């Protein structure tokens, strides 16, 4: 079925006359190299296939299933006469990346080619050693003085400690992300000034006080075992060390000045890579009288419209766009207009396409939904204290206000609940977060008047706020995929000792960030130094299950997941007590629940298995205090999981085959664990891949795959959401903050959603995150043949005789 003996259709490329020696180049055109390339020094030379093959071949060591010749020929086929060698290098990288879908090892090859490319770019600027890279950054005004002197003083030790081979840990997608967005760039030429390893070492040095600490951190980063959050990776060691991920701002007071001040606060925080949560409970609703002008208010929507424009305008230093989530309690009279803000139909003046939305739901609302009772809506002006109350106090005040006839209108609670569900289904937004549990189970709310008013952009941070305290959190995540151990050649469990060590190093690093941090607005500094909260999370839970061949909803998986969170919490608390002994407790320790010996699982009514060690720890906490009021939060880890090459946080895989769109282009991800299983079974063929594509990355119809493996490789769409919620609740008892829990329903209806979120509330979750669903119509599969095509006689014959080169299955 090869067409290389027939004249090429446009006559541009004569076909290769010699017989094929390798089947993998089947169907590729192998052009005569009459083309020339322009070299970096300006001279030109003919394209030399062998030279390209050799260059690619050097990067193929240890990769059994990649073909250097194929990359070279395909690269040349995309080239034009007079292209530059730079273009040629880029093209070979892209070519390798394009083959990942066929063979996951090409992800490693593409990463190595890119690593070589980056190294050339840096070296051509006469930057060789780590200290030279820091010096260059400092000279150009990018690196701060503290880091420059630290590195200069320890240059020899640091330069020697760098391990260039660690670049090999990267998959292509991860390295590409690092190259495009994290490496320091020359302000004028835009060339990168550091290699990926120099970058990791820079971050490690910037976050350390001693060389020993720096090298410990560098080891964790470069082995991709633990990564701090993006703002830390973006800004550590630079002139503006804003290293925190999350900011939570209480609702502006109901005045013009404070509303406008909040725009500035949001913009300043956004500028330096922070994601923002902003409450709006206190701003009066539509139709409320404005005494000073004797006019009526238009409610919160126009203010949010302005916020929307402001958020869109602030581009986070060109690295990523600003992002903000607005929280509203469902008794606010503008709640229905709020729920429509993300609709894509209707009056654009009432639409905010850039804002995320979350409902901050009190238990009373859910109880009214359960009882199918009424729900009253209020103007915050008439009930100004509701945002500052939770639990019974809230319920008393709310019902008093109802009896006093203060409500603007009364609707069925289920009517509003259905609206919330519709918004979730239509936009994925309008996250359900639960006010009462968030407050009752927060270490910072021991004293009366301390209230959590909202969560953050990703619903994993739960901290108190007030008009003069904005909450801040620094995040980092442990890559569980790299904390497993093997026995007899198979992964059999999580290495809890190693996990404990990583937790302790990570907690010290996150604590240090609090003191190093540049605070863009004043009210964040005071609060952060008083409470010293950090958010240590995890990623790659799905990788652990794949490595151990556990179905996501298997009882063993659930137990393991709980144990992981318990261990992380235990070691995080331990590290914080040690830090308190060493450097002192955080100033507000006496005001926390921990000071009374109350820990997170107490608020959930859960007793840990190994109670003895917990009782010892509890006693140590009461005696010595803690350095941090909060320690654990599971962030979505979207970007850092891609750098680490693992699945995001606690999430099941979305598909065995999916693409990722990012600012640096689109990348294909294949489930490499599945590919390995299929290869072992001799099933990793073009035909199987086509079926996988047509099935949108599901293996449920791949009957060749044993049933137990089909269960392991189910996607988020195929796993019962009840099991995800159960797991989240299990782990909740060991999370003093919260978790970014996405839920997945392919084609949701109101009844499913109302039941699901009701269950999430009943199980005591503090927060949930996006509702993910799938489009109603699909794009035509541009590169997959309809299955019936194989009824072609010729194609059938071909595929039977020579499955690898059958074009009907390509």
């Amino acid at each position: 079925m090869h067409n290389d003996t027939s004249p090429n259709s446009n006559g541009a490329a004569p076909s290769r006359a010699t017989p094929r020696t390798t089947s993998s180049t089947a169907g590729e055109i192998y052009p005569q190299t009459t083309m020339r390339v322009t070299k970096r020094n300006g001279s030109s030379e003919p394209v030399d296939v062998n030279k390209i093959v050799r260059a690619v071949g050097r990067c193929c060591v240890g990769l059994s299933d990649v073909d250097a010749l194929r990359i070279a020929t395909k690269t040349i086929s995309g080239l034009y006469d007079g292209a530059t060698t730079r273009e040629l290098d880029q093209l070979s990288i892209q070519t390798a990346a394009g083959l990942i879908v066929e063979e996951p090892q090409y992800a490693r090859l593409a990463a190595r080619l890119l690593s070589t490319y980056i190294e050339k770019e840096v070296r051509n600027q006469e930057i060789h050693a780590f200290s030279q890279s820091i010096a260059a950054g400092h000279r150009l005004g990018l690196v701060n003085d503290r880091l420059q002197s630290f590195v200069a003083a320890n240059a020899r030790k640091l330069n020697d400690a760098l391990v260039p081979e660690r670049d090999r840990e990267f998959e292509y997608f991860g390295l590409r992300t690092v190259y495009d967005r994290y490496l320091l760039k020359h302000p004028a030429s835009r060339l990168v000034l550091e290699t990926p390893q120099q970058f990791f070492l820079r971050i490690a040095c910037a976050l350390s006080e001693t060389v020993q600490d720096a090298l410990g951190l560098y080891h964790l980063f470069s082995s991709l075992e633990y990564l701090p959050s993006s703002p830390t990776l973006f800004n550590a060691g630079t002139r503006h060390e804003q290293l925190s991920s999350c900011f939570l701002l209480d609702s502006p007071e109901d005045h013009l000045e404070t509303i406008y001040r909040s725009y500035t606060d949001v913009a300043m925080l956004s500028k330096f890579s922070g994601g923002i949560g902003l409450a709006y409970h206190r701003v009066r609703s539509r139709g409320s009288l404005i005494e000073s002008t004797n006019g009526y208010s238009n409610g919160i929507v126009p203010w949010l419209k302005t916020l929307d424009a402001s958020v869109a305008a602030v581009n986070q230093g060109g690295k990523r766009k600003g992002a903000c989530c607005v929280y509203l309690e469902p008794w606010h009279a503008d709640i229905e207009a709020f729920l429509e803000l993300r609709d894509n139909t209707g009056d654009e003046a009432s639409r905010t396409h850039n804002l995320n939305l979350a409902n901050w739901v009190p238990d009373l609302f859910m109880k009214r939904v359960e009882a199918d009772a009424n729900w009253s809506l209020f103007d915050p002006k008439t009930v100004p204290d509701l945002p500052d109350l939770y639990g019974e106090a809230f319920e008393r005040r709310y019902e008093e206000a109802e009896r006093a006839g203060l409500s603007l209108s009364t609707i069925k609670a289920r009517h509003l609940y259905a609206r919330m569900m519709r918004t979730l289904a239509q936009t994925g937004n309008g996250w359900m977060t639960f006010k009462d549990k968030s407050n009752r189970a927060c270490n910072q709310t021991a004293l009366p008047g301390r209230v959590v008013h909202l969560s953050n952009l990703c619903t994993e941070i739960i901290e108190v706020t007030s008009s003069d305290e904005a909450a801040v959190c620094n995040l980092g995540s442990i890559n569980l995929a790299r904390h497993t151990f093997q026995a007899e050649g198979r992964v059999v469990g999580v290495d809890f000792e190693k996990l404990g060590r990583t937790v302790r190093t990570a907690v010290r690093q996150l604590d240090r960030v609090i003191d190093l941090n540049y605070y863009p607005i004043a009210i964040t500094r005071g609060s952060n130094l008083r409470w010293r909260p950090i958010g240590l999370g995890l990623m790659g839970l799905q990788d652990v299950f794949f490595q151990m061949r556990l179905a996501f909803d298997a009882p063993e998986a659930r137990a393991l997941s709980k144990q992981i969170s318990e261990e992380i919490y235990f070691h995080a608390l331990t590290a914080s007590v040690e830090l308190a002994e060493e450097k002192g407790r955080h100033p507000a320790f006496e005001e926390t629940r921990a000071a009374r010996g109350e820990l997170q699982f107490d608020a959930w009514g859960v007793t840990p298995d190994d109670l003895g060690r917990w009782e010892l720890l509890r006693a140590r906490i009461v005696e010595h205090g803690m350095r941090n009021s909060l320690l654990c939060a599971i962030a979505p880890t979207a970007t850092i999981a891609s750098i680490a090459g693992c699945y995001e946080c606690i999430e099941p895989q979305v598909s065995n085959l999916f693409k990722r769109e990012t600012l640096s282009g689109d990348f294909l991800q294949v489930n490499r664990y599945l590919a390995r299983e299929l290869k072992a079974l001799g099933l990793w063929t073009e035909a199987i891949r086509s079926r996988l594509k047509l099935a949108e990355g599901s293996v449920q119809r791949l009957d060749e795959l044993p049933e137990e493996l089909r269960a392991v490789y189910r996607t988020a769409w195929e796993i019962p959401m009840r099991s995800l919620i159960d797991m989240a609740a299990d782990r909740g008892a060991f999370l003093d903050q919260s978790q970014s829990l996405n839920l997945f329903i392919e084609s949701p209806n109101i009844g499913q959603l109302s039941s699901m979120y009701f269950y999430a509330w009943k199980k005591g979750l503090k927060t949930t995150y996006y509702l993910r669903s799938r489009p109603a119509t699909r794009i035509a599969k541009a590169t997959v043949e309809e299955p019936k095509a194989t009824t072609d006689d010729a194609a059938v014959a071909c595929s039977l005789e020579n499955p690898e080169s059958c074009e009907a299955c390509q």
Partner: protein
Amino acid sequence: MSAAARPARLLDPGLCLTLRPMTYPKFFEMYRAAIKNTWTVEEVDFSTDVGDLKKKMNDAEKHLVQRLVAFFATGDSIVANNVVLNLYKHLNAPEARMYLSRQLYEEALHVQFYLTLLDTYVPDPEDRHRAFAAVENIPSIRKKAAFCMKWLDATRGLERLDARAERRAFLLNLICFAACIEGLFFFGAFAYVYFLRSRGLLHGLAAGTNWVFRDESAHMAFAFEVVKTVRREEPELFDDVLSSAVVAMIEEAIDCEMQFAEDLLGEGIAGMSTRDVRRYLEFCADQRLATLDLPRRYKTKNPFSFMDLQDVQEVTNFFERRASAYQVGVSGEVVLDAAF
């Protein structure tokens, strides 16, 4: 024929109004699915595109984008005209006409999208006008437009489809717009967009194109469903004469598209050669032929691995893009004990 009676066959002349019983529920389902995928131009974020054009793209790439925009500026309008002037008139089933009404709206939406794109990418009013005039002034675009107009005009005079030759002419028009114009010209244009995106360029264009691509795929599926229906009802129309006319038409379309490709890529773009474009078009053409139950002609492999990406569902990092996967229609009532 009475408007209350269902015609015997889809192409029988008339303006049938009866939806119950429904002869072609599949068309109605397609209509409903399309409604669920409503999107608006306002949702597309062009904010990084202008910067890409100014700072990241070389002259050859800018030329490619200008030509693409010029093609898009008029492409969807031509398709919309054909829906009104030919398809709506002759598909005598109200559920099919509902789908076409929806398609017409989507074509208008695409026109609006590409207009916004043009206004964003091309600041000078004179240049903007020139983009629309490309359909007459730029040979590579004129050639494609002439091809479309030829097929659009071929059936325009027909008020009724009575004779076999008239029905065949109509089928050719339908196949031309689905297989050649949507299935090759647009698919060709999408390839350039996704090529650029695979280099991390022009996210606004790619985001909107994602949605346009989804719509166009549905339009094609509808047209091919019509062809299938007619084949079932009137198999005698599908003879060798029709087959060879389809093949000739596809060859002509590829020639048109190749002239366009030579113009677009003339200045040299690393990663996209005219040679590969031809193979890609041949690959697409084979797929259209297969859908029409005709033998594959080229048996070419798809050379563009970045089009593989297009087949695979997207997972969007919300910091960076808005996901385009949400459904608009959702129904049901609050209950607390449904399975989930």
